C-alpha cells in the first residue's frame, strides 16, 4: 500500500491510499480484498485526471499502472492489445517504428490505456476521428467478480457505459485498439495568428477539414476587441521522413513551491510574449510528433508550479449554434476576473458520435484552461457554469472538481444508465458529488 496519491490538479486535497496491482491474474483477488477491507475502491491509472473523478469515495484506490504488458499485436492490421495500465507513450514506443500511430491522442502521452477509455479522451483530430473510444475494438472488464469481454458486438451496454464511464462500471484489465498508419513520425504543421474570436471561427471553418489536426491557443487575458486572440495550429502526419520514437530530454519541477508560480504578472508576460512571437501570416514548421502533441510532457511534474494548493482545469464545450456568442462571454468573464492560464486551448469538436454513454465532446467549440486554486475562483466558475449551461454546453468530468449535480445531470442525461450499470464496489468522490 502506498500513501498519498492525488489527482493531477492536487485539488481537492483528498490523499488516496494506493493498492498496487502487478499481474492481471491477481486482479480479481486484489479487487475483492480491497473492496472488502475498505468498503469499496476505484481504479487509478497514472493520475492524470485533474479533479476528483479518479479519487475513490473510500480514499482507497486500486493502482493499475503495474498492468503494463502487451498481449498481442497485428502489425498488418495495426491493432494492438495491452493491459490497461500501459501508457500511451509505451504504446507509441513500439507502434511508431512499425509505422503506426494512435488514432486519437490527448495532450499528454502519460495517460494509461484504461484511463483513456474511462474518460473517452479526445485530441486535436476530434473533427475527423472522434474520441479515443471510437477506436477501441474490445476490452476486458472485471466487475462483480466476473471477467467480461466487451465490444461493439458483445455486451454492448457495458461497452458503451464503460467508454467515458469514469472507471465505475468495473476495472478495465486490458483493451485492444485500432491504430492509424503513418509514413513518418514527423508532423508538418502550420501556425498562424488570429486577432479575435470571430477570426478563430472563420479559420477553423476554412482549415479544419483540410487537416488531420487542428487546435488553437488563446490569450485568455486579452480584452475588448482583442478578446479571443490567439494562435491557430494545424498539422498533418508527414508523408516522408523517419519513424523515430521521441527521445526529448525531460526537464523536471523538482518540488512543490509553497505558492503558485502562476500569477497575474507571470501570466501577463507569457501571454503577451506568446502572441507576439507568432507570425501574422501562416508559417510552416516540420518537427517531431512530441512537441506537437505533448508540449507539456517535456516538463515532468509541471503541475507542481501551481503550488501546494494545486489548480483546477476548466474545460467546457459549447454547441455550434451559439458557440461564438457564448465563448466570447466566457472569455470576457475570465479576462475580467484576471485569472487565467498559460495554455488556454480552444478547439472545434466535430460531429462524430462516440460509442460512450457519457462522452464529453459534442459538435461545437471546446475551451480548456488551468486556474491556480485560490479564493474567489468559485465565483468565477459559477459565472462560467451559468454561461455554459444556458448555451446548452457541458463540462468535462475528467477535468472537473466543482460542477454542480444539477448541471451534471442535465448535461449528461445518460448518467442514470451509468449509475444502473455501476459496479457497487466502485465509486468516486466525483460521482458521489454529482449524483447524490
Amino acid at each position, binding site marked *: 500500500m502506498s500513501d498519498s496519491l492525488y489527482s493531477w490538479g492536487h485539488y481537492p486535497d483528498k490523499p488516496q491510499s494506493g493498492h498496487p496491482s502487478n499481474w492481471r*491474474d491477481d486482479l480479481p483477488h486484489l479487487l475483492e480484498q480491497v473492496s472488502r477491507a475498505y468498503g469499496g475502491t476505484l481504479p487509478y491509472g497514472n493520475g492524470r485526471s485533474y479533479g476528483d473523478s479518479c479519487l475513490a469515495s473510500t480514499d482507497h484506490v486500486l493502482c493499475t499502472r*503495474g498492468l503494463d504488458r*502487451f498481449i498481442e*499485436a497485428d502489425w498488418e492490421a495495426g491493432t494492438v492489445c*495491452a493491459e490497461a495500465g500501459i501508457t500511451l507513450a509505451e504504446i507509441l514506443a*513500439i507502434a511508431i517504428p512499425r509505422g503506426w500511430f494512435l488514432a486519437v491522442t490527448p495532450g499528454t502521452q502519460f495517460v494509461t490505456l484504461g484511463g483513456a477509455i474511462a474518460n473517452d479522451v479526445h485530441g486535436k483530430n476530434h473533427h475527423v476521428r472522434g474520441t479515443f473510444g471510437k477506436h477501441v475494438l474490445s476490452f476486458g472488464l472485471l466487475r462483480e467478480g466476473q471477467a467480461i469481454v466487451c465490444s461493439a458486438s458483445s455486451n454492448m451496454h457495458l461497452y458503451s457505459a464503460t467508454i467515458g464511464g469514469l472507471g465505475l462500471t468495473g476495472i478495465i484489465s486490458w483493451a485492444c485498439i485500432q491504430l492509424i498508419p503513418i509514413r513518418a513520425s514527423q508532423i508538418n504543421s502550420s501556425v498562424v495568428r488570429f486577432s479575435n474570436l470571430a477570426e478563430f471561427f472563420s479559420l477553423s471553418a476554412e482549415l479544419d477539414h483540410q487537416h488531420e489536426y487542428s487546435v488553437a491557443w488563446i490569450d485568455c487575458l486579452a480584452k475588448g476587441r482583442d478578446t479571443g486572440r490567439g494562435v491557430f495550429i494545424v498539422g498533418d502526419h508527414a508523408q516522408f521522413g523517419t519513424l523515430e520514437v521521441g527521445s526529448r530530454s525531460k526537464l523536471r519541477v523538482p518540488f512543490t513551491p509553497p505558492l503558485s508560480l502562476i500569477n497575474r504578472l507571470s501570466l501577463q508576460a507569457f501571454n503577451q510574449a506568446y502572441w507576439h512571437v507568432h507570425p501574422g501570416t501562416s508559417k510552416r514548421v516540420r518537427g517531431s510528433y512530441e512537441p506537437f502533441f505533448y508540449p507539456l510532457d517535456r516538463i515532468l511534474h509541471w503541475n507542481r508550479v501551481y503550488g501546494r494548493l494545486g489548480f483546477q482545469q476548466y474545460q467546457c464545450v459549447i454547441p455550434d449554434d451559439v458557440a461564438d456568442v457564448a465563448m466570447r462571454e466566457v472569455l470576457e468573464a475570465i479576462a475580467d476576473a484576471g485569472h487565467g492560464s498559460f495554455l488556454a486551448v480552444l478547439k472545434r469538436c466535430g460531429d462524430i458520435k462516440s460509442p460512450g454513454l457519457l462522452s464529453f465532446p459534442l459538435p461545437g467549440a471546446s475551451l480548456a484552461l488551468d486556474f491556480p486554486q485560490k479564493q474567489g475562483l468559485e465565483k468565477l466558475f459559477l459565472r462560467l457554469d451559468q454561461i455554459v449551461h444556458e448555451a446548452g454546453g457541458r463540462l468535462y468530468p475528467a477535468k472537473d472538481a466543482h460542477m454542480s449535480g444539477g448541471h451534471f445531470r442535465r448535461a449528461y442525461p445518460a448518467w442514470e444508465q451509468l449509475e444502473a450499470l455501476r459496479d457497487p464496489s466502485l465509486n468516486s468522490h466525483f460521482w458521489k458529488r454529482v449524483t447524490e
Partner: protein
Amino acid sequence: MKRILIIGATSAIANACARAWAEQGCEFFLVARSVEKLELTQADLTVRGAKAVTLYCMDATDFSAHGPMLESCIATMRQIDVALIAHGTLPDQKACEQDVSTALDELTRNGTSVIGLLTILANQFEIQRCGTFAVISSVAGDRGRPSNYLYGTAKAAVSTFCEGLRGRMFKVGVHVITIKPGFVDTPMTQGLGLPVALVAKPAQVAKLILKGIDKGSNTIYVPGFWRFIMLIIKSVPSFIFKRTNL
C-alpha cells in the same frame, strides 16, 4: 541477437531487462514458478520484438530440477549468451529470527539456490567458452544490518561466490557480473515506505544492467550512487555501527 536465460523471469528487474533485450530481437528461455505469469510475460516480450520465448516452470529451491532445466534450455537455444539470475524474495527478518526453518528456507531461496544454479551453469559455460553470468545480488550483502541480516547473509554469499567464479571463468572467456541494486520500486519492496528520493524504477535499473553487461563490468551498483552510500556504510566502525538500527 543474444540468447538469454533468465531465472526468476517474472521478477520486476528481470522483466525490465527482458523488455530492453526484446527490443533488440533477442531469444529467451524464461524460468519461474508461475506458468500464468510466465505466459503473460511471454506475450509481452513477443509483441516487443523478442525472436522466440520459451517457458519453463521451476522452483529454484528444488535443486533436483536445475539439471533438467539446463538440459531443456540448451536443447532449445543451443548456447546461452547471457544467464540472468534474478529470483529471490525479501524475507521478513523478524520471522526469520523466530523460526529456524523459515530462516533456512529464505537462505536457500536467496542464497544457496543461486549457488546451486551457478555451479551447474558454470560447467556448461566452461564448455561453450563464452557468455556472461549476470547475477542479481544486493547492496544488503555488503554489510550485516539488524533490519535484514538474513537477506544480507544470503546476498553476501552470492557476491562472494560470484567473485570467486569470476576468477575461474575469466580464464575460459566467460564473464561474471555482480549486480547490486539499491532500493527499486518493485512488488518486492511495495509497502516498505522507502525514501522516495532513493527509489529507482526497474526500467532505469535495467538500462544500467544491460550497459554493465555490454561493457563487461565486474560489480555494478544500480543506480551508481549506491557505491558511495555503501562505501560510507562499510566504513562506519563496528562500535558505532552496532548501535544503529539500519
